[in-house]
């Protein structure tokens, strides 16, 4: 495997590893963006109103059960080749954890805090945006990072429909019985996943209020 991975020939050109990495990252980030735009408002709204929680949990579980390959194939069969089927499949994969995390996060905000928010005269939008969401951020990030890991791992299947990404290495390696190439693909995917996760961990540190960090025995009364 090392041989394949460290062969300089595989690090250049339009099909070189850097290109594949960039493509893979591209799929991942755009997917997460779309999924977040859909899932966070939904989860937050349902968490805020407390109505429809059952639907949210059921829906995310059902979505989790959807085999990504099948979704991919179906969309290809309906809509033809291209990146669109890949995004549909990956977004469907990313929605459940993000939605569940957001829902759980908003629900888990201490009712006393929410009550206080209303008590000081916040409107419902203020309660949600200024209090519930900031307090739910750790759990929202939890769901989001879980989704990111899965998307990075699963973006591999883009190659199934002829598209790029690190999946190319895996699929080509599989077809050629080049285990070195395949393993290199798998390792790079795992590595990318770790890097992406680190990136979001950094973002989380920057955006989550320090007041929500677990405090050691020193800080807490």
């Amino acid at each position, binding site marked *: 495997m090392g041989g394949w991975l460290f062969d300089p020939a595989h690090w250049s050109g339009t099909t070189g590893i850097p290109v594949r990495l960039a493509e893979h990252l591209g799929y991942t980030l755009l997917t997460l963006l779309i999924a977040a735009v859909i899932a966070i408002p939904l989860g937050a709204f349902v968490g805020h109103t407390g109505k429809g929680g059952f639907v949210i949990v059921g829906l995310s579980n059902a979505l989790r059960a959807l*085999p990504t390959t*099948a979704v991919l*194939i179906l969309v290809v069969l309906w809509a033809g080749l291209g990146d669109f089927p890949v995004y549909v499949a990956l977004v469907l994969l990313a929605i459940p954890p993000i939605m569940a995390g957001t829902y759980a996060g908003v629900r888990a905000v201490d009712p006393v805090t929410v009550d206080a928010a209303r008590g000081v005269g916040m409107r419902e939008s203020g309660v949600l945006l200024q209090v519930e969401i900031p307090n739910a951020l750790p759990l929202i990030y939890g769901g989001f990072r879980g989704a990111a890991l899965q998307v990075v*791992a699963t973006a591999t*299947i883009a190659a199934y429909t002829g598209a790029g990404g690190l999946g190319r290495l*895996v699929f080509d390696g*599989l077809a050629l019985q080049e285990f070195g190439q395949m393993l290199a693909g798998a390792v790079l995917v795992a590595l990318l996943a770790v890097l992406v996760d680190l990136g979001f961990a950094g973002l989380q540190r920057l955006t989550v209020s320090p007041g929500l960090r677990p405090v050691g025995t020193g800080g807490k009364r």
Partner: protein
Amino acid sequence: MTWIFENWERFWEVTEVHLRLSVVPVLIGFVLAIPLGWWASRSQTARAILFPFANILFTIPSIALIVITPVLLGVKILDEINVIVPLAVYTLALMIRSVADALSAVPGNVVAAANAMGFRPLRRFLTVDFPLALPVTIAGLRVATMSNISMVSVGALVGLGGYGQLFTEGYQTDHTEKVLAGLIGTVVLAVLADGLLLLIGRLLTPWARAGR
């Protein structure tokens, strides 16, 4: 839908395989996750080792893991072991966290009360900690089961994979209905499994619905 009825026998055949390939890994992964999760719930070191490891395991693309497993295990190429092992690994990776979180969430004063009454560690684990961790554990198990059921299809790459067979065939012959049949099968199986776990959870944790 008509495809399912017209080809009931074949549908049932892949269903059986799919069911077996999803249930067995979940059971294995879950059973292994209990001691490891317990360890992680008690020791910071264990967490520091197990969690990143589980995370990385989870990021290995299933396609790659399923294809590589036969090479690593050296068993017969068409043996179901080749799908069961990687899926069990994924379940394990998911469930270590669930079990550890569930055990850590057992209220400290209850644990203290158990210790103070003279429970020895094993008995305490079996009769206090673990039962109290069940609701969270089962929630985790539901998620793990769902993703397992959906992932079994990838096994089609190595000639296994239950409904995955229908996806491949349907794809190659441009046969939407066959793909849909597999999809429906998967979702129905998932919903049934989810319902069953929910029911088991309720039966095992009657106290969770008491009060409020």
